[in-house]
């Protein structure tokens, strides 16, 4: 049996669609140059020297005590943060799905917590951690009268990262818990199991793969995190910061490349396990829809303690965010609590705040629509079309999710500072705003693509087929059918990518040149110097921008989103 004829016919049909062919080719070129190539160059850098293939560079960096320490540090933090985030996330998800939350206040709190990971710049919690619990911390110094408390190091990073990442776990696990059919648990209750027994023997085993999934996702986020260890790590270096210092401090580019390969190796393994094993497993057991609504737990002995724990945690997180604008308004944090606007003033008068906001805003605003459109195109091709390079496009755009920003940054330095393969081709890109835009796009592409894919999977294949059958080519189908139907996903991709870009730091900090001032880089700089007032002023304005964007998005979706209308159909 030869399938050759259909293959050649499919190819002919594809080639009859020039816009689509061009799109696919451009996509492949883009993904190859800006994701695959920089990673390849890291391998080349660290494995190949003048004398051929060698492990010398690896041997050299492995002998560095600080690098070896960084590996253990990173893994230790990642492990703890992964477990803590998954468990706290589970607690929140369980309380939301299973327990009756009687008050408006509690519902509001949960909503805020679920929104935080979207709007929060990465290092905000580190800043407030220092301001609350550091040497001059309000809680440590003024409430507890401890004058030499150190928040820097392992516990600082672990706590801050856990508080930053657990909302992601909460959202993931909430989705899974909602899919559990209540009758499973009711059956167990009916046969005489206690609530705790039901949780341990029914609920928990069902979401165990999902829990593992949440753990690994957080683990990857944690070890890829650059901003928090940078600000609150002190002398406790992780891989991301060590790599950064290796290139900015020691100017050891090959060494940094080899270290980046090690970091990439770790995240990649985690990612593959997560993506291809746990993710499939966690949804496979819980893909069904709940047959009816769950009877919420009203038993006070359960609701009261759970709500108290959750609210305490949530309030604590909210408090940490509130701490930031106050940090910008006290004359001297920890000593002089008179309110002042001098820091905000200085941001704009002394520290070129206006330029920083303009640069960050413009670069992010250019990259956001491109990212949103690109991810919608990729998801359309992946979900609705069949062609040979499809696997490549899907794999590479997802691969970007597993690449830590620092690694990508090093890859870009090594890959583009001398042009492609040192040939000078595309060298003009290096040091421009363009390369920053590209980094923003690459960094946000996986999230956008993922949401686009899941939105498109919900649309019946025959809707697009019908348009195709009526005479529309792929481009027309995409513009008149697909895009209008996933408008919401496009909009949220736009805003998410904007927010991610404007709050990004890890890759950017390695690539930015003095001609561009970026808010995040400024915050990092002032926080490093200990000028918390200025750092907080920058951060407060940044939070306002991101929060504002999300608000605008929600309003836009409410009034212009078509998906709502379409969804009402079922």
């Amino acid at each position, binding site marked *: 049996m030869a399938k050759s004829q259909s293959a050649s016919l499919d190819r002919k*049909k594809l080639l009859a669609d020039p816009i689509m062919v061009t799109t696919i080719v451009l996509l492949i070129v883009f993904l190859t140059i800006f994701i695959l190539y920089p990673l390849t160059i890291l391998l080349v850098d660290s494995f190949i020297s003048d004398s051929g293939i060698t492990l010398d560079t690896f041997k050299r960096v492995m002998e560095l005590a600080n690098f070896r320490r960084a590996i253990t540090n990173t893994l230790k933090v990642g492990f703890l943060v992964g477990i803590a985030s998954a468990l706290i996330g589970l607690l929140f998800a369980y309380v939301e799905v299973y327990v009756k939350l009687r008050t408006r206040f509690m519902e509001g709190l949960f909503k805020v917590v679920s929104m935080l990971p979207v709007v929060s710049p990465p290092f905000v919690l580190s800043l407030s951690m220092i301001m609350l619990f550091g040497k001059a911390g309000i809680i440590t110094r003024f409430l507890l009268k401890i004058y030499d408390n150190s928040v820097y190091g392992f516990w600082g990073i672990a706590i801050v990262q856990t508080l930053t990442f657990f909302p992601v776990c909460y959202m993931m696990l909430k989705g899974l818990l909602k899919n559990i059919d209540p009758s499973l648990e009711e059956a167990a209750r009916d046969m005489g199991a206690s609530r705790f027994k039901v949780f341990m023997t029914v609920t928990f085993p069902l979401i165990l793969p999902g829990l593992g999934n949440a753990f690994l996702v957080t683990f990857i986020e944690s070890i890829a995190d650059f901003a928090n260890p940078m600000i609150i790590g002190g002398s406790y270096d992780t891989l991301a910061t060590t790599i950064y210092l290796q290139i900015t401090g020691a100017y050891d580019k090959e060494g940094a490349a080899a270290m980046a390969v090690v970091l990439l190796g770790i995240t990649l393994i985690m990612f593959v396990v997560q993506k291809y094993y746990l993710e499939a497993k966690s949804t496979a057991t819980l893909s069904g829809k709940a047959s009816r609504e769950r009877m919420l737990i009203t038993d006070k002995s359960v609701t009261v303690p759970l709500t108290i724990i959750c609210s305490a945690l949530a309030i604590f997180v909210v408090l940490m965010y509130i701490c930031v604008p106050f940090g910008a308004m006290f004359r001297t944090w920890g000593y002089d609590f008179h309110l002042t606007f001098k820091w905000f003033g200085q941001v704009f008068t002394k520290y070129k705040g206006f330029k920083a906001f303009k640069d960050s805003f413009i670069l992010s605003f250019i990259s956001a629509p491109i990212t949103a459109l690109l991810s919608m195109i990729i998801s359309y091709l992946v979900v609705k079309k069949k062609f040979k390079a499809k696997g490549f496009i899907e794999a590479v755009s997802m691969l970007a999710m597993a690449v830590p920003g620092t690694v990508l940054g090093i890859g870009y330095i090594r890959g583009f500072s001398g042009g492609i393969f040192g040939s000078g081709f595309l060298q003009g890109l290096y040091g421009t705003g363009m390369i920053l835009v590209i980094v923003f796009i690459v960094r946000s592409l996986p999230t956008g693509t993922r949401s686009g894919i899941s939105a498109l999977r919900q649309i019946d294949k025959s809707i697009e087929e019908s348009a195709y059958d009526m005479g529309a080519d792929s481009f027309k189908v995409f513009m008149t059918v697909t895009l209008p139907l996933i408008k919401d996903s496009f909009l949220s991709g736009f805003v998410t990518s904007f927010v991610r870009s404007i709050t990004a730091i890890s890759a950017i900090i390695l690539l930015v040149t003095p001609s561009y001032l970026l808010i995040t880089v400024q915050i990092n700089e002032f926080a490093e110097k200990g000028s918390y007032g200025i750092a907080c002023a920058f951060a407060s304005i940044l939070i306002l921008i991101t929060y504002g964007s999300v608000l605008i998005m929600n309003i836009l979706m409410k009034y212009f989103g078509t998906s709502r209308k379409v969804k009402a159909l079922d």
Partner: protein
Amino acid sequence: MAKEKKGVRLEHISKIYKDPKTGKDFYAVHDANIEIEPGSFVTLLGPSGCGKTTTLRMIAGFESPDEGEIYLGNEPINALTPNKRDTAMVFQSYALLPHYNIFDNVAYGLKLRKVPADEIKRKVTDILRLVGLEGMENRMTNQLSGGQQQRVALARALVIEPGVLLFDEPLSNLDAKLRVSMRTEIRRIQQEAGITAVYVTHDQSEAMAISDKVIIMNGGLVEQISTPQEAYYYPNNKFVADFIGEANFIKGTVKKQDVVEIQGTEIECATGSLDVGAECDIVLRPEGATLSDTGSIKGCVKYSCFMGAYQDYHVLVGDTLVKIQDYNPKNKKIYNVGEDIFLKFENDTLYAL
């Protein structure tokens, strides 16, 4: 209404798929040779997995055949994409564009063909009248019932005046009553529009009711192409006999032309091209025989049940259980379980395979 009625011709068409479980290739459609006359209504009929939908999707262009060539009119269309083919499909799930109203849904294909706006308006209004949806232009698709959505889907396909209209189980999402009235409606509209139609269904009564010809498929193979009557009275094989209507198979031997022997008794029966002396299966439709005190073939009643229109019997003949439906039972003798009876065959109803 159509500019030109086109026929469809499939020459040695095969489609190979990979079984996702075993990883082995198999023929979803194997060497199908089908000729569809211009203006006729043809049904692809068969159980699920028989290859009927695959065949339809190859005609539409969504799937590419692995062997053979498809002609639309006289034009080979294998390499054409669906949007370049002169076909229009009515989907099982209606597949209306949910962000458009009814008018825009129907006008979609015309706009793509750059038809002037006033002509679009006229054509859409006309076609909506034809399918009985006049005045609904501004409704959204989710404000329509399933039957109405199906009419929109039909109007959308008809309005671009395709050479061939394709239906992919269009009625399977409707309730039983609506199915019956819609199929009459589809047949009426097809005749009025004078358009070639290829229709996929697994419901044999639906196929019988609307088709000029039925193409019965099983396991990727075309088993029979004929009028519904021929398929019912003269099935090519046991599968067709069993799939179209209900059938009993009684073992027998061909004695001479149009005479067979069942359990020592000779009976008139169409033997077709079977040789004298051949062992054969005799097809007996449930309504093709009645029960009686005297007659040729002996049997014993194993089940007897009043169904209103008929008395339902299971009769053991030799070692074969034969199902008989004796219509108008009111003034007839009713036989009970355990009674010995004789089968009395209606004239010209037996067919030997």
